C-alpha cells in the first residue's frame, strides 16, 4: 500500500485542468494540455512486442502510485539563504547563472546582470511563460511532439515547470548555466527544458536531476541550435535508485551549428532515455557523449538517433558504461543518412565494461544509409575487466581494488576528457570513484 502525501493530486484529466487553472494559463496551452492527455490515453502502454521496449519492461510501474505535488516549497532570495547542501552543489560549478527547481517550483534563480542586459534569458519555464509567452509558445513542442511516445504525451499534459535558456544572436557565454532539479518522495515530476541558441551564439548548460525517492521523472528536452550556434548540454541523471525515469530529448542543428551533448546516467531504478540529433542544414556537427554506471538491479536504456537529413554534416557518438551487480544496460542507436545527404561523416560507438557475472549489457548499433558518398562507422564492445590488467597493476604494488578502480576510471577517461566543464568532470570522477569503492 502506498500512502499518498496529503497535499498531492492524483494523475488524471482533472489534474491537467487544475494545473491550467492554478496558473491561469493561456488558452493555447490549456488546449495543448488537454489534447496531450487525450493522446496519452489513446497510446497504449508499451509492451515488449515493440522493438523499442523489447529489452526494457515496465513491470511494477503504476502511474497511480505517483502524484503531482501541491505544496509550495520555500523560495530563497540569495545563495546564502539556501540550505547548505544546495549551496555546496551550486558551488561545484563556476556558473554564469543558476536555477534550482524543487518539485516543479523555482526556489532559486540567479543570472549575471550583464547577461540579462544583453538579452540572455535564463529562468524557469513558468516565469518564461509569463514574461516571454511568444518565445515559449513558438518553441514548446516544436521538437518533441506530443505523440512521440506515451511518456511524451503524459509530459505535455502535466508539466509544471522546467528550464528556459535563450541566447541572443552573437552572444557567447563561456561560463555554464547550472540547473538543479530536485524531487521529493513519491512525486511525479515533468521537467521541460528549452534551449534556444540564436545565430552565432554560444552557451553551456548543465542540468542535474536529483532525488525522487520512489518517484518518477518524465522529462522532455528541446534544443534549437540556430545557424552557427555552439551549444553544449550536459545532463546528469542522479535520481534516487528507486525512481523511474523517462526522458525524451531532441536537438536540431541549423547551418554550421555545433552541438555537444553529455548524458551521464547514474541513478534511477529504471531509465528509458531517447536522444535524437537532427542535423537539418549543411555544415552541422553534433557530438553525443554518454556515460553510465549501474549497480544492484538498475536498468538503464538509451536510445539514440543521429539523423543526417542534408549533406556535409558530421556526428560523433560515444557511449561508455560500466555495469555491476545484477544491473543491466541497453543501448540502441541508429545513424540514419537520408537520400542526398552526401559527405555525411558519422560515427557511433558503445563500449561496456562488465564488472559482475550477473550484469548484462545489450548493444544494438545500427546504420540506415540512403546516400552513396558517406563515411559511417559504428561499433559496440562488451568486456570484463581484463585479469591481465589487474595482475600487471598488482605486480606494481596496487591492491586489487585500487587496480580495478584505475582500470574503470581509465575506461571512462575517453568520455571524461571531452567534458568541457571542470566542475562536472570532477563530479563525474567522484561518482565513478564512489561506485568502484574507495579503499
Amino acid at each position, binding site marked *: 500500500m502506498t500512502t499518498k502525501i496529503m497535499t498531492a493530486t492524483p494523475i488524471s484529466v482533472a489534474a491537467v485542468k487544475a494545473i491550467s487553472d492554478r496558473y491561469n494559463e493561456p488558452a493555447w496551452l490549456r488546449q495543448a494540455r488537454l489534447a496531450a492527455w487525450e493522446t496519452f490515453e489513446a497510446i497504449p502502454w508499451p509492451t515488449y512486442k515493440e522493438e523499442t521496449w523489447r529489452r526494457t519492461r515496465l513491470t511494477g510501474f503504476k502511474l497511480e502510485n505517483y502524484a503531482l505535488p501541491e505544496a509550495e516549497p520555500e523560495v530563497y532570495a540569495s545563495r546564502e539563504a539556501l540550505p547548505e547542501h544546495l549551496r555546496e552543489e551550486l558551488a561545484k560549478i563556476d556558473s554564469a547563472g543558476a536555477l534550482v527547481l524543487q518539485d516543479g517550483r523555482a526556489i532559486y534563480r540567479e543570472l549575471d546582470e550583464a547577461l540579462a542586459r544583453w538579452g540572455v534569458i535564463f529562468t524557469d519555464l513558468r516565469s518564461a511563460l509569463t514574461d516571454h509567452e511568444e518565445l515559449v509558445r513558438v518553441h514548446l513542442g516544436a521538437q518533441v511532439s506530443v505523440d512521440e511516445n506515451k511518456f511524451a504525451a503524459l509530459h505535455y499534459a502535466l508539466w509544471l515547470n522546467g528550464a528556459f535558456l535563450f541566447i541572443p544572436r552573437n552572444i557567447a557565454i563561456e561560463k555554464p548555466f547550472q540547473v538543479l532539479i530536485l524531487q521529493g518522495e513519491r512525486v511525479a515530476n515533468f521537467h521541460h527544458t528549452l534551449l534556444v541558441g540564436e545565430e552565432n551564439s554560444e552557451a553551456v548548460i548543465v542540468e542535474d536531476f536529483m532525488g525522487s525517492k520512489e518517484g518518477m521523472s518524465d522529462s522532455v528536452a528541446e534544443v534549437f541550435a540556430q545557424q552557427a550556434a555552439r551549444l553544449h548540454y550536459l545532463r546528469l541523471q542522479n535520481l534516487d535508485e528507486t525512481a523511474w525515469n523517462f526522458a525524451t530529448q531532441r536537438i536540431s542543428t541549423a547551418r554550421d551549428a555545433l552541438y555537444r551533448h553529455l548524458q551521464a546516467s547514474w541513478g534511477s531504478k529504471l531509465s528509458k532515455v531517447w536522444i535524437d540529433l537532427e542535423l537539418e542544414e549543411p555544415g552541422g556537427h553534433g557530438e553525443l557523449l554518454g556515460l553510465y554506471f549501474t549497480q544492484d538491479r538498475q536498468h538503464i536504456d538509451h536510445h539514440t538517433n543521429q539523423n543526417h537529413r542534408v549533406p556535409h554534416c558530421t556526428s560523433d557518438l560515444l557511449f561508455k558504461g560500466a555495469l555491476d551487480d545484477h544491473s543491466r544496460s541497453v543501448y540502441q542507436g541508429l545513424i540514419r543518412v537520408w537520400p542526398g545527404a552526401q559527405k555525411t561523416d558519422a560515427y557511433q560507438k558503445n563500449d561496456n565494461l562488465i564488472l559482475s557475472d550477473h550484469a548484462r549489457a545489450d548493444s544494438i548499433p545500427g546504420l540506415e544509409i540512403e546516400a552513396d558518398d558517406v563515411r559511417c562507422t559504428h561499433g559496440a564492445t562488451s568486456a570484463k575487466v581484463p585479469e591481465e590488467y589487474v595482475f600487471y597493476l*598488482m605486480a606494481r604494488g*596496487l591492491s586489487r581494488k585500487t587496480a580495478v578502480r584505475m582500470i574503470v*576510471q581509465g575506461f571512462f577517461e575517453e568520455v571524461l576528457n571531452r567534458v568541457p566543464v571542470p566542475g562536472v568532470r570532477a563530479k563525474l570522477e567522484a561518482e565513478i570513484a564512489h561506485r568502484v569503492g574507495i579503499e
Partner: protein
Amino acid sequence: MTAVLEIKDLHAAVEGKEILKGVNLTIRQGEVHALMGPNGSGKSTLGYVIAGHPHYEVTQGDILFNGESILDLEPDERAKLGIFLAFQYPVAIPGVSFANFLRAAVSSVRGYRDRVREEMERTGQFKEVGSELIPMREFRKELLETMDRFNVDRSFARRYLNDGFSGGEKKRGEVLQMAMLKPKIAILDESDSGLDIDALRVVADGINKLVADGMGALLITHYQRILNYVKPDKVSVFYDGRVVLTGGPEVAHMLEEKGYGWVEEHLDELEAKEIVNS
C-alpha cells in the same frame, strides 16, 4: 641486510600441465644472475610464479624472500616486499596515465597507503582522499629526475600506460617503473627482446645503474646479446622447467658457441652435476 630470493624445488602447473619441474635458484641483492634458456622452456612462467600470477598453481617447493615463504602473498604484497617483475609483454591500459599509475604504485610500495590506513584506524578519523599518496610535488620532482637519469622521454608521464607504445618504449617504461619503485630483487623477463641497439643500451644502462644502487636482478633471456652490456655474476641454463647448469659468465659464452642443442644432448650429465652443485 642483503635481501635474498631463494627458489627451492619449485614445481608449478597451469591448467593441470606442469611447466616448472623443480627449479632451484638463489638471487641476491646487488648481483646479476642471468637465466638463459630456449623458447618454451618455462622461463617466463618462473617470472610469473615469483610475482604471484593467479593463473599458475604451485604444486611443490617454495619461494623464500629473506627466509620467509611468499607463496601465500598476493602480487601487491610481494611488490611491497621489494620484488619486481619487468614484463616481457607489458599490457596497455587505456585511460590510465603513466604518472597517475606510478604515483599510486610508489605510494603503495613505500607504505603511504598503509600508514594512512593505520592512522585512520588508530584515530578513528577519516583522512581526505589523496592523503594516501606521495605528495604531488615530491613525486613529480623525483619522476622527472628519474626520467632524465634513465633516458626516458618526459612525455611518458602524460601518456596512457603502454597505450600506443612501441616495443622499445614499453621496455623503457618497465625500466622507469623499476627505477621509481626501487625493488630489492627484479626479475627481467626478456627485457632485451625486440630492441634495436640504442634501446638495448638504454635498457642495459638502466639495469646497470640500479644494480650499482644495490638491486639484485634475475635476467631472463634467450640470447647472449644483452650480456655484452650487463655483466652477469652468475649464469644459469634453464631447460624443460628446471635449471640444468649454473656457473660464471663463461657459461653464457659456451652457450653462444654450442647452442641449446648441446644442452639437450648433454642433459643427463649436466643435471647430475647441477644437483651435486646445488
